[in-house]
């Protein structure tokens, strides 16, 4: 199979619009969580979330008008606008602007989302009930469909290769990058724009995830302390929003055009729990098997992994099961492994999480620094693994693994290696 490398990065997160703008705040132990703004929350169990900082586009704020014309924005849910921003950033970073028909046909898009246009579906439902079917916009369907993120990005940038999408809940972003890398490895494309995007912060989603008992509810008055993976006081995740997109490229293709190469995608593993719709399997078996598959594909031994960006959502059950699965995978090498959850800073971006966290893993390799797990005051279990509490840490990272696990028992792991 052909080698696949990462040549461009883009993101919109609750800390900032932009990769470097977000990363510098991650390393400064900043949190993007706050009290929810924009709609009524008094009757909700969870009233905190990590929302994107809106503004004129300066100082890392997100200005949608910079990424999509206002008349187009009106037609779509924000997850598509976030994807447009992250994809354009990543393509600019990669310096890839295909203009010939051949180059366009060799460049594809694979961007997924966990729940897509749930906010717009909610609004249109109200319109249907209150004012009838004639008031439903012709843009209602195309502006809510999850694969329309890939569609809009392909139209904007003239990418005529594979146009695909992924919907695997909180594993979406990782599956998108892994599947896109496979398409390149197998020769279906030379370049893929891949990642995840999500705009889930509305009353309906907060009510739904709270009903699943997945959200933090004990920190409504202290939002930045709500997301606390591995800490004994953790009580659920803090919802986030945003997008992460990478440009993946066949190695020789990248080399030939002198592209900057961030990392190589050396491993990708997938597994299913076959256990429960929302709970992870009790022995962490699904997590273990998808990491094992990714490590086998990478052709490395688990002891070579320097850093893991954990799924670590801050739910009582999930964090410890993942930790156990990681301990089982790395065995005696646990003492040299660092593993952190950046969800402690930006919350859980659901379908975008895996993509944003893959980028953090790549930046950890680039900069030789591992990002912190915020709020880890008292770990609920003892482990030899360094969970990087509170502060980022200098560390040479040559191999990094990123985990994502989703509702439905769907798991994905990605392994990246530094390219010297």
């Amino acid at each position, binding site marked *: 199979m052909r080698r696949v490398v990462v040549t461009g990065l883009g993101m919109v997160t609750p800390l900032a619009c932009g990769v470097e703008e977000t990363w510098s705040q991650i390393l400064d132990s900043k949190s993007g969580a706050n009290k929810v703004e924009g709609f009524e929350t008094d009757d909700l169990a969870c009233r905190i979330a990590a929302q994107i900082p809106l503004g004129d586009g300066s100082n890392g704020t997100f200005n949608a008008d910079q990424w999509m*014309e206002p*008349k187009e924005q009106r037609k779509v849910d924000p997850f598509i606008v976030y994807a447009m921003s992250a994809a354009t950033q990543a393509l600019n970073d990669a310096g890839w602007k295909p203009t010939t028909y051949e180059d366009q046909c060799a460049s594809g898009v694979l961007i997924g989302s966990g729940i897509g246009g749930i906010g717009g579906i909610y609004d249109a439902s109200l319109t249907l009930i209150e004012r009838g079917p*004639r*008031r439903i*916009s*012709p*843009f209602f369907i*195309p502006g809510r469909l999850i694969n329309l993120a890939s569609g809009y990005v392909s139209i904007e940038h003239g990418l005529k290769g594979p146009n695909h999408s992924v919907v695997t809940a909180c594993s979406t972003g990782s599956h998108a990058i892994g599947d896109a890398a496979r398409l390149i490895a197998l020769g279906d494309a030379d370049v893929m724009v891949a990642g995840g995007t999500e705009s889930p912060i509305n009353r309906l989603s907060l009510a739904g995830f709270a009903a699943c008992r997945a959200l933090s509810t004990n920190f409504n008055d202290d939002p930045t302390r709500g997301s606390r993976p591995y800490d004994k006081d953790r009580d659920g995740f803090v919802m986030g929003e945003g997008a992460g997109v990478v440009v993946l490229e066949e190695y020789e293709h990248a080399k030939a055009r002198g592209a900057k190469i961030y990392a190589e995608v050396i491993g990708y593993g997938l597994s299913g729990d076959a256990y429960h719709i929302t709970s992870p399997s009790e022995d962490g078996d699904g997590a273990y098997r998808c990491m094992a598959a990714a490590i086998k594909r990478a052709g490395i031994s688990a002891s070579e992994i320097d850093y893991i960006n954990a799924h670590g959502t801050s739910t009582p059950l999930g964090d410890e099961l993942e930790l156990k699965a990681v301990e089982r995978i790395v065995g005696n090498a646990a003492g040299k492994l660092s593993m952190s959850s950046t969800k402690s800073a930006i919350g859980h971006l659901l379908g975008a999480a895996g993509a944003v966290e893959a980028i953090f893993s790549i930046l950890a390799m680039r900069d030789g620094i591992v990002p912190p797990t915020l709020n880890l005051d008292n770990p609920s279990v003892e482990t030899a693994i360094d969970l990087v509490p509170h502060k980022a840490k200098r560390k040479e990272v040559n191999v990094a693994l990123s985990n994502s696990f989703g509702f439905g028992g769907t798991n994905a792991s990605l392994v990246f290696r530094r390219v010297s």
Partner: protein
Amino acid sequence: MSDVADRVKKIVVEHLGVDAEKVVDNANFIDDLGADSLDTVELVMAFEEEFNVEIPDDAAETIVTVGDAVKFLEKNAA
């Protein structure tokens, strides 16, 4: 310019994101103002909303320019 024409042009400018000076009577929504078939459906909905009138599909098909819309609404709007 009639009140109806003003209101029609305002809607067209907002929905199609075009400059007001391009929204002249003989401007064709698709050929001159960059609308696609879905845009025209939404435009008709916006006219219905603004003028509190129902525009049946066969009538909507005859509204292809700004002037067509103004004429129809001047005749049919309450």
